[in-house]
């Protein structure tokens, strides 16, 4: 299901981008991308409802989302330093792809209640959700990267976030749409993306080891193994 969601989202985004070659379709792209994003987010929450995730996991996801949202609000005065990227990536790495996706989505939504909701909210939810999902897939086999490797991944994720947000801005508000204009939107945001990346890298170097240990410990506490008591108790 998760793979279907990722593939569908990626195909829809790339396919819609291709439609831009015909500029009269630009408004259609804006609408279609909004519908696709809303659909992906709605599907993920429906999947959450149908999943076997219990109250303990829900409480854990909620706590991490609140922590992430608060950190974003605290860092809001510093231009484009977004702890959400680092924290979402860490949650994905330690807890898995779907909890990572949920933490990214919900923290974007909740922090925007304080910072301002707008047409950017679904895009931010999707981008941060995607970061959590990618990191979850990265750490799926219990891989624990070094702080520098994780920091560099956070740099990449920060740029990914900026690029997705640029895509939204360029397509929805750039008239006339030209590939040069599209490219220049990315160039002009470079400074902000760099600040985002530097902030995420610094946070990863400072907090990764300590926070990973904590999250990993709670992840282990969530895992329950049932022992079959009907088996003969040999050797007792």
């Amino acid at each position: 299901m998760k793979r279907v969601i990722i593939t569908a989202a990626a195909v829809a985004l790339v396919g819609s981008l291709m439609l831009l070659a015909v500029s009269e379709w630009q408004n259609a792209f804006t609408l279609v991308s909004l519908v696709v994003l809303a659909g992906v987010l709605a599907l993920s929450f429906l999947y959450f409802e149908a999943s076997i995730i219990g109250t303990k996991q829900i409480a854990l996801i909620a706590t991490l989302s609140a922590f992430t949202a608060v950190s974003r609000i605290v860092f809001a005065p510093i231009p484009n330093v977004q702890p959400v990227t680092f924290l979402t990536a860490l949650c994905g790495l330690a807890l898995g792809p779907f909890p990572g996706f949920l933490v990214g989505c919900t923290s974007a939504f909740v922090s925007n209640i304080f910072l301002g909701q707008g047409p950017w909210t679904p895009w931010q939810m999707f981008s941060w959700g995607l970061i959590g999902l990618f990191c979850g897939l990265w750490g799926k086999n219990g891989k624990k990267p070094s702080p520098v490797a994780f920091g560099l991944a956070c740099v990449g994720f920060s740029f990914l976030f900026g690029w997705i947000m640029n895509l939204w801005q360029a397509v929805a508000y750039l008239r006339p749409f030209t590939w040069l204009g599209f490219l220049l939107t990315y160039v002009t945001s470079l400074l902000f993306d760099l600040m985002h990346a530097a902030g995420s890298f610094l946070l990863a170097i400072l907090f990764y080891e300590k926070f990973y240990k904590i999250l990993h410990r709670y992840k282990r506490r969530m895992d329950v193994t049932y022992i079959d008591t009907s088996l003969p108790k040999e050797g007792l």
Partner: protein
Amino acid sequence: MKIQLHILTPVFLLVSSLFLLFSTDHPFVICGSILLAVTVLAGGKKWKQLKQGLWFALPMTFFMLLFNLVFVSSGVTELAVVFGKRITLESILYAFLMGVKLLAATYLFFMAGSLTNGDKAVSYCGSKLPKSTLTFLLIFRLIPHFRESFFHLKDVYATRGVEFENVPLREKIKSYRAVLAVLLEQSLESSFEIGEAAYTRGFLSTKRSVYERSRPTWRDGLVLTADALLLAVYILLLVNGSASFNLYFGEGLERLSNPAWILFLLLCATLAGCILIANRKQRETTEVTWDT
């Protein structure tokens, strides 16, 4: 403004308004959306949100204006030639139009937010999406708790001799790192307790009962009818090609005088009026009983 509408009505309103706004660049559609959102926000005395929207849209408009001035040469009406580069009226107007479009979208989100009653939303979503509702409820409860815990922990550490002020940045980061790690650990521990408590109370074991069942009333009917009328008129305009607009190619300019646009703007104003009427506080009637 006291919220009287059903939880789904603002959702339908937001979806239909975003459909109108993002399906075209037509100035009348953008003006209509602004008219609708500003009237509702001003009617609810949401001055702070009106100001906040401007703060979001102004830098973006400035960026788009600068971008169009420097890089766009399309358009027919030439205003000046600077360093061999044509500056056209169309490129300036388009940048302004896109800025207003962003402002309209922001205001529409604010409008939907101002029309949503938090308690009713929780009650409704709790019956339909219990896990998501529990997640959001916990987040909202935990945010003030985090702030309190952070200052509490900082006090404890300061009492133990950890310095937070008047120390080099490196030391300061070290001190805050310890506090944040403890805060995270403590919060996760309490999240475990919350999870256990919810589990022992049988949460998610059966379908939750709805405490405050909210049913659509004539108010929702009024707003949704006005919205449907507006959508119908817009779809007719879209089908006959009046809604297509591209200033650079002069597309849609000859249809700007189409009287249907006046009807469209009137319907936007009517919808705003209907929302304000629907949200008017119910007159309280006092029943007087006489002792005999």
